[in-house]
């Protein structure tokens, strides 16, 4: 009966539930802010594509097809990054919600599901971090 509770096992006492609830609350806020920022950035790219590409191209290049290609590339890249960040933050927000609700309702299944979502968040974050590190190491080697 490894899943049966006993006084020797770890309990979600008052301090743990307060800390976890607060962590979940701030995690949810962070997730919301990041999603909002990414959404705004995407909107900015769509609305101000021409002005943004003028930072990187000369006026003659802007008049040609390079400007359109760069705008499409920027929007496509923005959507791709937005999707990845969206999935990442959805794990965080769902996990935070479920952990808090699990603690409030004393629902072990909901609480465990929240922890599972948080695990997915950190797993995805870790994998993206490893990929980013590999890319920057490749960039360093190519210099």
């Amino acid at each position, binding site marked *: *009966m*490894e*899943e*049966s*509770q006993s006084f*020797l*096992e*770890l*309990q*979600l*006492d008052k*301090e*743990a*539930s307060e*800390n*976890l609830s*607060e*962590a979940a609350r*701030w*995690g949810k*806020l*962070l997730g919301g*802010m*990041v999603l909002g*920022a990414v959404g705004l950035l995407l909107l900015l790219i769509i609305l101000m594509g021409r002005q943004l590409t*003028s*930072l*990187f*191209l*000369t*006026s003659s290049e802007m008049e040609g097809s390079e400007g359109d290609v760069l705008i499409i590339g920027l929007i496509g890249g923005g959507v791709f990054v937005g999707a990845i960040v969206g999935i990442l933050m959805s794990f965080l927000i769902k996990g935070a919600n479920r952990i808090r609700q*699990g*603690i409030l309702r*004393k*629902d*072990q*299944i909901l*609480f*465990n599901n929240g*922890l*599972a979502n*948080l*695990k997915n968040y*950190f*797993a995805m*974050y*870790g994998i993206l*971090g*490893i990929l*980013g*590190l590999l890319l*920057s*190491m490749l960039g*360093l080697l190519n*210099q």
Partner: protein
Amino acid sequence: MQDDNQGHLFTELGFDFTARQHILSIASWAMIVVVVAVIGYILNLIQILTGGKEAVPQSEGFGMVDAFAGNSTTSSVISIIIGLLINFFLYRFASMARSGINELNQDQLNKSFNNLKFYFVTMSVILMVVFVGIILFAAAFAMKAI
């Protein structure tokens, strides 16, 4: 006896086997995030010290970008310091959570959640400061353009 997950009406919420496994996974992945971040900071520092960042070429349309890149070393160092602070809390959460679960140490586990809270608090506050900075910069830029 029924699965304890079903008997939550009669027991307090706790860290059953599933919850403990999830927390250990979270701690492992959090540690990976910390290690990757620290390696990234070291690589960044190496780039700065070896002068690996090339100057932005002056050409039409690059004037504004050059204004941003004017103090890239200082901003990189500040970013690294902030990143180390954030990852310090994550590291403490990961190490304390792992030892708390493995040694059945309630106090250690509680402290780990405290560090997780500080991790999210620090990230959120820094992001808010960055947002305010961007808004102020955009407003100043817009006023200058007018």
